[in-house]
């Protein structure tokens, strides 16, 4: 299709020249465009971060974070995020595998449910959760009988984060498992491995890069979860709510240190997971 880029102005006799020179010119033009496009994205991303850094003096950050109890939200966010990831790993990984392996009856209904969760606005998820695990619901009553509550508690925060992050993880896990060549699993079985050992020795290692990426996305969603959280878990504060209340009560300058902390905490894990999975994929592909 290289001739199309040259506008078709050349006759058929020029086809050889087009094949030789055309693509290179097209490639240089398209790579210049691509660099420019990426530059726009980086500007749009980094601009606010630079502005954020410019607006926060080191002194303000230190004093903001050294106030009594200022690190509480960070701890709450990390703990709830870690618990959320644990729940997703334990429940979401098998679900993703079942979906990818086609082992669930009527998979479309499962997929539609996960898609709905993915598409629902977080605020609406929060409202739905009130009707699901609130104190006047059967689930709420059950939790109450265990002396637990899913309203304005740490548990509520984890529930909200799980709801916001789960669809991202399950969809990612399903894609990761679908990417494993079933012929490799057949081969492992024929070499003598029963299904669980095939899962451990072939399926999971090959799906690991995709699972890591999915987990990184889920972590970022959980750390930034706000919509559902503000409705059913106003207390205890995680970082997003701390930013929100600081902004409401004392204005932008006092919210900025927490925003920085959130960025610093939420980003490294996804970035590390991304780098690791990109490397693993390259190694498998050669």
């Amino acid at each position, binding site marked *: 299709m290289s001739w199309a880029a040259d506008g078709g102005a050349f006759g058929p006799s020029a086809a050889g020249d087009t094949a030789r020179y055309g693509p290179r010119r097209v490639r240089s033009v398209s790579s210049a465009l691509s660099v420019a496009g990426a530059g726009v994205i980086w500007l749009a991303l980094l601009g606010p971060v630079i502005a954020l850094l410019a607006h926060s003096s080191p002194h303000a950050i230190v004093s903001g974070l050294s106030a009594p109890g200022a690190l509480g939200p960070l701890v709450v966010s990390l703990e709830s995020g870690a618990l959320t990831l644990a729940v997703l790993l334990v429940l979401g990984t098998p679900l993703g595998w079942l979906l990818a392996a086609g082992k669930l009856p009527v998979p479309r209904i499962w997929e539609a449910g996960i898609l709905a969760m993915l598409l629902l606005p977080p605020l609406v998820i929060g409202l739905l959760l009130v009707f699901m695990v609130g104190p006047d619901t059967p689930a709420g009553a059950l939790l109450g009988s265990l002396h637990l509550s899913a309203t304005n508690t740490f548990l509520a925060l984890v529930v909200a984060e799980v709801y916001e992050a789960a669809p991202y993880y399950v969809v990612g896990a399903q894609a990761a498992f679908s990417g494993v060549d079933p*012929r*490799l699993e*057949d081969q492992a079985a*024929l*070499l*003598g491995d*029963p299904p669980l050992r095939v899962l451990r*020795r*072939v399926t999971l290692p090959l799906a690991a890069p995709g699972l890591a990426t999915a987990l990184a996305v889920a972590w970022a969603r959980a750390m930034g979860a706000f919509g559902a959280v503000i409705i059913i878990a106003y207390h205890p504060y995680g970082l997003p709510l701390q930013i929100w209340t600081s902004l409401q009560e004392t204005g932008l300058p006092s919210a900025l240190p927490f925003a920085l902390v959130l960025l610093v905490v939420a980003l490294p894990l996804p970035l590390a997971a991304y780098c690791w999975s990109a490397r693993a994929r390259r*190694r498998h592909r050669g």
Partner: protein
Amino acid sequence: MLDVDIEVDRREFTVAARLSVAPGEKLALFGPSGAGKTTVLEAIAGLVPPKRGRIAVAGRTLTRTERPRRSVPPWRRRVGLLRQQPALFPHLSVRQNLGYAPGAAARVTEMADLARQLGIEGLLDARPAALSGGQAHRVALARLLLAHCDALLLDEPYTGLDPGSRRQLTALLRDLVSARHVPAVLVAHELAEAQAFADQIAVLDRGAVVQVAPPDEVVLRPASRRVAELVGYRGFVPVAAAGLPPSAAAAGEPGNGVRRGPAGAPAAGAAAALPVAGVHPERVRTGAHPGDGIVLSGPVLASRASGAAWEADISVGGTVVCCRFPGRPPGVGERLTFTAVGAPVFGDGGRLVRHAEEVRA
């Protein structure tokens, strides 16, 4: 001993195979694409459930559809399958791939020997992604052999490779498999490859085994016209045109214990009524040699260079026969007399009646 007697349903037809392969014996399943060869192997490996039948390896019943029913899962069959894709585990090194099967990693000396024989000893620490196609196939073969299976199934393993590596690997495969004294089944859609590997060739067509014979015999004595077509016969001349008495051929007994294949009847179609002699392009000699076969004669329609020889289309009694000659054939329109060496004659229903020389006698 590998004993197979199964029927497997496929969308277009049912694959019915009855095979028996002794330890150390090498059988090739030969047939056109889509004949059901791979289905047979997958049923033996336990990847496809047969509708009816029985599979046994080394005295163990792996599949039985009659009571008491039995279906051993693939991982407990001890049946090795090598496919066209080497299917190496990309996250493991070559050494880890070789040692994948239970107990294989401990067979250190055997692994070293195999690696040396297959020329992969320098690659043991490489990742599969770094291997060439031929190297990956060698590793897959070594991994299969190290698993110490009770039967080896080889599903066109080298189809994707260039002819040189394919010949070399098939020879290696033959030697290594022979040393194992286990039954081995190779699926091939090229006759030369099947012959290079096997002691016995089973010809499969549309799900049915139509002939089981030694490698040369499937070409010399094809059981039916359909088998003849599959092994490369490309011209079928009415016996009358070949100067033989048609009654002699038609009266002949069905030849020599050859079973009548289901494929023979429908495939032969209209030609079934009259006995025809099969002409294999590579089994012809120029000139009249009545002692060797059927003497045919006709004008040359076209000729072309083909490899180290020439190929000519010759019109004989209204049918076009394609032949290969070591020398350049006469020009278009000129008459050529040649002998179809040992040409088989197919009678009613397309089945082998007898050879031309027997007819003459």
